[in-house]
């Protein structure tokens, strides 16, 4: 009894402080997550749960047409989403960060300008770009016509070979401020002496970047890459706002999250298709496995290459 009292005297405040957060986390994070895991192993009739059906929902998603075609299509779109975004942020983003780190005139203005789109809601970004890219009266098309390049105007969002890339570029426009900000901080954290030593040894600016800046940035790049991966494999808003839940045109922009949404709640545009909770939950679990596995692998890799100055 005395043990309990002295333990409470020592740690009681911790319990008091942690309880509210734990209750909220448990109710709104842990419980929904675990219950949706269990949803995936039951058969569902609309929103009513029927019997336990083991891995049937997973087998349906992975092997039964058209679910399997949608699923693998969505994964390949998410993968392209990630690869292109990664390519843009580690070339253009890194380049801008290194330039900004030189603190040229107008530094503060450009720093803010590059970060600004990142502060906008993706719903706003999607709506804005959907209007700008409208082939009938969008500003992009009007601008091209004004300078005599009317032939270049295309229904970018309506063609299956351009729609996804267009959305990835719009996403990059909105996202790039974040990697730039993080890279900039990392570049500025590299001690001056390293660069000075390189210059004294006769290194060109490129050699300085290649052999001093870049190796020291690798852990940061790896961390941003993991975040990008998680973000891009969960991407939803842009496609939903710009192309609808069906990943129009004909699933060319369908992502795992839009596939999940459509399956869970029915596509409102096709009118009254009932949701299939069990199959949707299976898609959600598969997303969780993919993202969790790759992120865990990435985090381990990053920890191994951590640098301290």
């Amino acid at each position, binding site marked *: 009894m005395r043990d309990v009292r002295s333990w409470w005297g020592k740690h009681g405040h911790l319990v008091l402080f942690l309880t509210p957060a734990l209750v909220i986390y448990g109710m709104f994070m842990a419980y929904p997550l675990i219950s949706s895991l269990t949803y995936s192993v039951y058969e569902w009739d609309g929103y009513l749960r029927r019997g336990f059906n083991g891995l049937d929902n997973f087998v349906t998603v992975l092997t039964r047409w058209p679910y399997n075609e949608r699923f693998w299509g969505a994964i390949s779109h998410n993968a392209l989403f990630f690869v292109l975004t990664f390519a843009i942020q580690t070339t253009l983003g890194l380049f801008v960060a290194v330039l900004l780190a030189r603190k040229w005139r107008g530094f503060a203005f450009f720093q803010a300008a590059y970060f600004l789109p990142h502060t906008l809601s993706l719903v706003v970004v999607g709506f804005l770009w959907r209007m700008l890219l409208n082939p009938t009266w969008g500003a992009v098309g009007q601008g091209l016509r004004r300078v005599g390049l009317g032939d270049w105007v*295309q229904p970018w*969002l309506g*063609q299956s070979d351009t729609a996804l890339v267009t959305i990835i570029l719009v996403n990059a426009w909105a996202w790039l401020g974040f990697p730039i900000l993080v890279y900039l901080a990392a570049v500025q954290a590299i001690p001056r002496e390293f660069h000075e030593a390189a210059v004294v040894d006769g290194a060109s600016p490129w050699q300085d970047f290649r052999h001093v800046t870049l190796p020291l940035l690798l852990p940061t790049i790896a961390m941003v890459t993991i975040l990008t991966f998680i973000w891009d494999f969960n991407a939803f808003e842009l496609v939903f706002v710009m192309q609808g839940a069906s990943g129009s045109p*004909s699933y060319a922009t369908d992502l795992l999250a839009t596939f999940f949404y459509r399956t869970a709640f029915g596509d409102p545009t096709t*009118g009254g298709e009932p949701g299939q909770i069990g199959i949707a939950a299976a898609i959600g679990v598969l997303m969780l496995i993919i993202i969790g596995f790759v992120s865990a692998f990435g985090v381990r890799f990053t920890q191994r290459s951590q640098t301290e100055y």
Partner: protein
Amino acid sequence: MSRTVRALIVSLVFAFAASALAQTTLSFWSWRTEDVAAYEKFIAAFHADNPDIDVTFTPYLNTEYNTILSTALQGGGGPDIVHLRAYGGMESLAQAGLLVRLDGQVAALEGFDPGVLLGATNRADGGVYGVPFALQTVQVLYNVDMFERLGLEEPTTWAELLAVGDALKASGVYAFANGTKDGWTNETLFGAVGPTFYGGTPFFQEITAGETDFTDPRFAAALERMVALRPYLADNYTGVGYTDMQTLFAFEQAGMFAAGSYELGNMAQLNPDLRIGSFAVPADDAATPSAISFYVDGSYGINANSPHQEAALRFIEFLASQEFGQMFTDELQQISAVPGTQPTSEALAGMVEMMNEQGTPYLMLTAFRFGQPSGSTLLQNEMQAVMAGDKTVADAVTNIQRGVAEWFEGFQ
């Protein structure tokens, strides 16, 4: 005290006593948030004749209504009067025994068109579980003033339709406002173009009976006609979405619009001066009959667990009456499902006439939305790819057939 005054007092006392004894309030759920004012009027008209029954109309957000309603009904609660979706959207509720079967109870239903009643029928027992309220037709709308200005007339053959399209294009506007960016608008385009070429109701009856399937050459021929209209759609049509289409037609940048009757209300808001006519897409020769699609928007039903069955039935009888049908069409500018109602609007009257003479059930919506993948989902996405030139009609037919055969008993 004069005799009149005495009679008045007596009748007042009786009225008060009657209402105090038998005042029933029915609850009525719906997704028509935009029609609250109209429903208040309908309810007031009902209440005037049935002072002992009052009705409270509660609309929910369109996209959440299905979930709210089915959860409430399955839990044994919910409203007395239920605004129901049509076809596949209502059938699951009827099959679960949550609705009152109305055929045989509501006499006015016998006067309804059998094709219309399909929208509120449970296919398992053939029973009617709702009083259909509105019908929509899918056809070609056209700008009457623009046609008059260019000396154009409603086409009576396919060649004439293309000639009208060429004349519109030559005058500097698009022939059709249609685009294909939003998947579901491909189904609308098919609903306007297809029926004439697959042969309307006979084909519909054969395919729903399982006597033929989507590999039938008539179906492919209908899809081909839709593809043949590509040169007449808006420029960059693969990037033209639904709101763009509405705007192009409303602001006279296109002369025709393959669309539903519900656009009349939208157009009246965007451009009240627009005069709209409508026609069915004609066949190759004027002698072959043309067809348009129509479908039931939904119906009114009674909750099987409602404690006010008798009062609910009286309200439902009112909703099936000619008086209500006329009020409905006048107030909301939509086609009432009640037989014999006369729309006051000229454009709407034209559509009703076409529907009565040439109407055939809207293929995918009325017959192939009962399982997944639904015929609508398949048609929309396959034809979006065909219209963009990414697929052939033959590919689309193969996939539509394969998808529907996953669940449709008639093909198994």
